[in-house]
């Protein structure tokens, strides 16, 4: 369960790498995107320049650099947190992003250090109900014995797998749909992925 970020400086072939343990991946989200796409953005190479230059320990100065994050060891349980609550500078406050972000019931991580594609299956979703960041309600969907269950406080209902897609989010900004998938739980299907 390691996350690895490496920094490559622009003018020299220095590569610094740092391992970090993670419990979940917090992903930036975009309107009408997929988890696959958010994961790609998460692991894409970022150039650190202008005001974001990298401080190099070796030359003791700010340098232009490239940074990227890869998963060193795919976890047994992959927890994905969607950054739906975002601070909007123009507004000076947090806002809930109701973006439509689709998540498949099957997923593979390809942004890993190892070559093998690790395969995952969705087994739970935490849903935030509400239009703003300061209020609302949480419900959850859990797959148990091949059936999806919907938990809302003391109420538990059996739902069809196809109902999961009603929690993807809204394709338009102003929508009456306020139930959005917030935290996703995937379980590894691979035999040799032990946490």
């Amino acid at each position, binding site marked *: 369960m390691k996350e690895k970020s490496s920094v490559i400086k622009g003018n020299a072939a220095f590569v610094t790498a740092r391992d970090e343990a993670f419990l979940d991946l917090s992903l930036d989200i975009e309107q*009408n*995107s997929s988890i696959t796409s958010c994961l790609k953005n998460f*692991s*894409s*190479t970022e150039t650190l320049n202008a005001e974001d230059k990298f401080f190099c320990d070796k030359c003791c100065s700010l340098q232009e650099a490239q940074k990227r994050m890869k998963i060193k060891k795919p976890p047994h349980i992959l927890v994905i947190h969607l950054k739906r609550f975002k601070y909007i500078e123009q507004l000076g406050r947090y806002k809930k992003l109701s973006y*439509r972000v689709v998540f498949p019931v099957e997923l593979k991580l390809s942004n890993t250090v190892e070559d093998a*594609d690790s395969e995952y299956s969705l087994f739970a979703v935490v849903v935030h109900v509400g239009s703003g960041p300061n209020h609302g309600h949480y419900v959850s969907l859990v797959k148990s014995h091949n059936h999806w269950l919907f938990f809302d406080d003391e109420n538990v209902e059996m739902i069809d797998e196809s109902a999961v897609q009603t929690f993807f989010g809204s*394709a338009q900004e102003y929508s009456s749909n306020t139930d959005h998938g917030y935290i996703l739980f995937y379980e590894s299907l691979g035999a040799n992925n032990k946490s």
Partner: protein
Amino acid sequence: MFFAIDFPLTLRKDSREEKISKLRGTSGENLGWGDQMLSRTYFKTPEGRYKLHYEKTHPSSLLHYAHGKTVTQVTLAHLKEKPAPSTPTASSSSYSASSGVRSAAARWLGTGNGSRTLGFAGGNGGSKSISSTSRIGSLGTLSSSNSMTNMNFDGKGTYLIFNVGDAIFISDLNSQDKDPIKSISFSNSNPICHAFDQEAKDGHDLLIGLNSGDVYSVSLRQQLQDVGKKLVGAQHYNKDGSINNSRCTSIAWVPGGDGSFVVAHADGNMYVYEKNKEGAADSSFPVIKDQTHFSIAHARYSKSNPIARWHVCQGSVNSIAFSHDGAFLATVGRDGYLRVFDYSKEQLICGGKSYYGALLCCAWSMDGKYILTGGEDDLVQVWSMEDRKVVAWGEGHNSWVSGVAFDSYWSSPNSDGTGETVMYRFGSVGQDTQLLLWDLEMDEIVVPLRRCPPGGSPTYSTGSQSSQWDNVSPLGTLQPAPSIRDVPKVSPLVAHRVHTEPLSGLIFTQESVLTVCREGHIKIWMRPGVAESNSSNSETVLSNSFKDKPLVSSKIGSSTSSYKQ
């Protein structure tokens, strides 16, 4: 190696190293996120600009809560000039009225390319008058309204059939009118899928599958002639879901199948029906013993309709498509497998698994050599019937791929006789609201990249690592999901955000590309060289010249600027 397709450099490097189809004038940054601006009214391709010509939608006032629970699909229907003499179930009053104006309509529509002239001469005014007359009609002045209504629909024409909520809408493709000329509401359940057969011998040419599992066949012309808001002259199959009560997901006429058709359902079954055949009371099929295995059951009685049940897979069959000669049937489903069947022999020929997740759509090339699929792994897959495996992955969508199609009207710029290179143009649409166009040059796909040692340069495999990959798999077997390193990647030629809502489908016509979003808005993008010719009869000339000469005479190099969006 790091596979992050949104990063421009990676995109370019991968493509070059793997010697896949050329990246033609795309520089990664256009494919990424960034601009949330409103969709533009044109997009550029090597052969010129595709321009937004007009839009079709539904009257939003008709929508109620059910809207949004179903996804809009669109079917293109060409009605031929000669109408079937009459459909047996047609009401006599509407027919007597229509025959009176038939000659006038034929003369009016008979010039030029018809399908276009009709649009601009008649479509606009004509369909306007229809909507008003149908309102009058319902108040009781039937005789006059009938003649007005029928006038348009006895000649040839091209129509768009699309479902939104609990209704089916029909629009005249060639009219600039945004609103449909006809709406049909279903009180019992929502329509989900539909199919049209231009070659239908007798009246019924339109199939409609419902959320309840019910299926109808009707005559499109008869619907257009009728002024009501209900389906008329319909044959009803699987009534109240008596044979299968799961959602209809996809429906198709069997090409050359003499009125037989196939309906796919959300429970993994497909049924074969024969139109105009009354279903006998007992059409039951044996219990499926193993949900995970393919099995076929034929009806026990000759009078039964459906005549056969194909159990394809566990979970939903999401889409089906016949090869154009009708020999093969492709299915894609929740389990992520593409399956290709020999339809008449009822045998599984080949198939394979997606990278991950369900497959949502599939389409054949005209020559039957390739199948496109799209799904929840955001990839467009190109499946080769010859190799019986995936030969390319199209990377470029930022969400699920919901519609794929080959552009059969597009002619390769290299088709000038030197022709070793066979090139295909295809398109895909996704829930990322984008339309992507792709070129595939088949001779450029070589042995795929296998390994990429960290920090080193990529090497090509000698074929030892996965020998299974290099051999054509035996008939009737399904391939496992390929590893990401085993499949050549293709980058899109063009990426354009065409709608603000997730898309659900696309259709190529001779003059245009049609895109449709889940919420029921359709946009018609005219091909380069066609859009300029709005006026009347120049259509035939233009579309001919468009077909005859290659639009791009030379290969487009790596210049990226000219096609930037």
